[in-house]
């Protein structure tokens, strides 16, 4: 029966060409939406890797005029002591502009075993960073004071980078890079620094030394849960008194996370609204055309009923016809969609595309099924006597 129907639809391909093109374009639109949704959902399910509640970011600009590294060092230590002495402060850490949920990114690359690993997030951190953000150590340890005199530069890497450098083996104590310039002392769990819907990517944490102090323009402060607005005002006063020439701003990581998530969701929401509208559009058109076509075939249907076909088998035939028609479009659509993982267009994992293709195919079939259902039912209700009489 399928072969027969397939032939029927193939013979009418010129007549149905527009309908098929329409379904083909809708498939591509659905595929785009599905790809982003699957990608976001996959990222969303992974753990954040840190505890951002009750952590505040203090931005300050350009506080010191001196070039003497030692006096800058002393200044920061004094500032840290002052802030930490406040009752509701648990931990303080200085870092560069790429704090969690900030748009600033610092990246570099490293040559390892003859290939270049690029786009590694680069964090300059101090000994307290891990405690402030509650990063989860998978192996090894975080930085401490002894690292200042280590002969080979100590670094902490994240799980993604560990897998790329060393596979599944433990990394602690091993050196990497073509000139062995870094020695891994610990591995932390991946941290989604750019919000819930993004990948963590590769990351390397470097201990701040006197040479990198110039870029330390953010302070992360972990406070107790009962820290309120009054305390925030006090913290603000304390810091702006200590940093006389700096402009100071305090932000909460929870707020920053919210706006970062909105930023990544916004294009997705706009795309979904537009796609949703296009799909409603196509569904209505499809419904209209199928309904009209079936009405035009009343004589044929009447004849089939007259020679003994049941109403059910008639409506089944019409629905199957619509599904076969959409199969032509889906095959063409899948052909184009498959090119994305094959050519690795957007640097997304292949599984995302595969899942998106499967979901889009199901979606299109479901859409066609719904649109063909009512016209099919109507056709089943045709009385042979009435239909044949009309002719």
């Amino acid at each position, binding site marked *: 029966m399928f072969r027969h129907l397939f032939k029927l639809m193939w013979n009418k391909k010129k007549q149905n060409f527009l309908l098929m093109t329409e379904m083909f374009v809708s498939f591509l639109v659905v595929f785009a939406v599905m790809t982003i949704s699957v990608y976001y959902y996959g990222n969303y399910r992974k753990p954040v890797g840190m505890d951002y509640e009750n952590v505040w970011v203090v931005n300050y600009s350009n506080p010191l005029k001196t070039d003497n590294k030692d006096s800058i060092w002393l200044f920061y230590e004094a500032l840290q002591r002052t802030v930490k002495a406040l009752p509701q402060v648990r931990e303080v850490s200085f870092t560069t502009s790429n704090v969690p949920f900030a748009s600033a990114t610092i990246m570099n690359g490293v040559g390892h075993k003859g290939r270049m690993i690029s786009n590694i997030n680069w964090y300059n951190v101090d000994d307290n960073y891990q405690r402030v953000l509650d990063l989860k150590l998978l192996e090894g340890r975080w930085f401490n004071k002894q690292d200042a005199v280590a002969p080979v530069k100590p670094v902490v890497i994240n799980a993604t980078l560990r897998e790329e450098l060393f596979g599944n083996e433990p990394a602690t104590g091993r050196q990497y890079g073509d000139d062995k310039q870094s020695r891994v002392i610990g591995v932390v769990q991946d941290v989604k620094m750019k919000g819930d819907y993004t990948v963590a990517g590769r990351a390397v944490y470097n201990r701040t030394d006197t040479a990198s102090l110039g870029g330390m323009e953010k302070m992360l402060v972990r406070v107790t849960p009962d820290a309120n607005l*009054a305390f925030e005002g006090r913290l603000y006063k304390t810091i702006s008194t200590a940093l006389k020439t700096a402009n100071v701003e305090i932000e909460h990581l929870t707020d920053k996370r919210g706006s970062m998530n909105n930023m990544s969701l916004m294009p997705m929401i706009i795309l979904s609204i537009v796609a949703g509208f296009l799909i409603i559009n196509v569904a209505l*058109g499809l419904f209209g055309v199928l309904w009209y076509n079936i009405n035009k075939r009343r004589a044929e249907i009447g004849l089939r009923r007259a020679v003994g076909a049941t109403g059910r088998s008639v409506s089944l035939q019409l629905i199957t016809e619509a599904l076969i028609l959409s199969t032509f479009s889906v095959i063409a659509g899948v052909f184009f969609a498959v090119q994305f993982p094959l050519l690795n267009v957007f640097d997304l994992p292949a599984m995302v595309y595969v899942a998106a293709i499967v979901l889009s195919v199901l979606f299109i079939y479901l859409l066609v099924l719904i649109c063909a259902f009512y016209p099919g039912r109507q056709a089943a209700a045709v009385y042979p006597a009435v239909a044949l009489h009309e002719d």
Partner: protein
Amino acid sequence: MLVNYFKIAIAVLKRRKFFTFISIFIISFTITILVVLAAFIDKVVNDTYPDRNRSRLLYITKFEESGPQSMNSGALSFYYLNRYVKTLKRPARIAISSRPQGTNTYVNNKKISINYKYTDAAYWEVLDHDFLEGKPFTAQQLANGERVAVISERLRKEYFGNAPSVVGQYIEADAVRYRVCGIMKSVPPSNYLFSGDLFLPYTVAKTDIASSKDYRGNFICVLEAPTRADVPAMKAEYEQMAARLPMTNNQYTHIYTHADSYLNAYLRSGNEKKSGMRIVSTVVTIFVLLVMLLPAMNLVNINVTRIMERSSEIGVRKAFGASSKVLAGQFIIENLILTLISGLVSVVLSLIALQLINRANLLNDLHLSLNFNVLLVTLLACLVFGLLSGAYPAWRMSRMQVINALKAS
């Protein structure tokens, strides 16, 4: 003739109400999406608050130094503006302002986030802000380093609440007290070059802004030409000056900086190789095509179906000597009538959609409206849509053989 077409069109639309509903729904929704997009673009491109005499202005926002290995781009330094830009002969006035920075203030048990900017006195002359109270600070106050501030209506409401008059009162921001000298109507964040809450004289900046001798820094600048005719010469003068700039560092080989018209400045990405203008226009074009393509195809499909229904009418008219051209014309006109009706529906829908967007307050102080430009776009969209979805069915129909057309009934 046209009246007849109109009557026929209405009769046809009335006959199959379901199809008419689908068509009107599709067209009006598509046009609504386009109108909302157009309203947004119109807001960005044509909202001339506070830079009202845009045709006389050029904007300098980015400075790029690049070499084979490295590229650095940012806004302009105070030093560069003073040393190079202010020596230009053509501009009548030059306004400078820093890029926005964030700070907080704590008042009445409330935290207020403030975007503040440093400006010069010319900023208030070149740009035409609406002052609700008070006035901007003067060149004298700037020179004296007085701690005065122009604040936005939004900040006034948040900081002072409903106090009757706040000029002369003090506002504390960034742990410093400033005397309020004027309150201006807020500039929406969509006009990011000029939006902000707190505007201070650059002489009160905590850091020594003049100390850096880099080209790149934290300021942007607006040049005002004496008349509209002087703008090209002013642009040329700036480009010539920029071409003669010495390199600061031997890792750089090129300097790119431009005095742009508003739209170019607005979209400039700061990377000479990535034109913001091109990216934005590509995205908008693809979006518009996608939004129009599917519904148009859908309509063609429906129209083809509906025209086949009328094959007997076509057959009779052809048999009595109507040419294909006349028939095709009639169908296109019928289709245009349908599209125009939908256009009217879409104006209503757009008003509702814009109202919803404004209520949702997606961006502070951003109010989209349906103005003449947008209506023009709507009309254009209707025509394009009508032709797009009417041409193919009309062509197919006009090729129908008389015999077949008559036989079908």
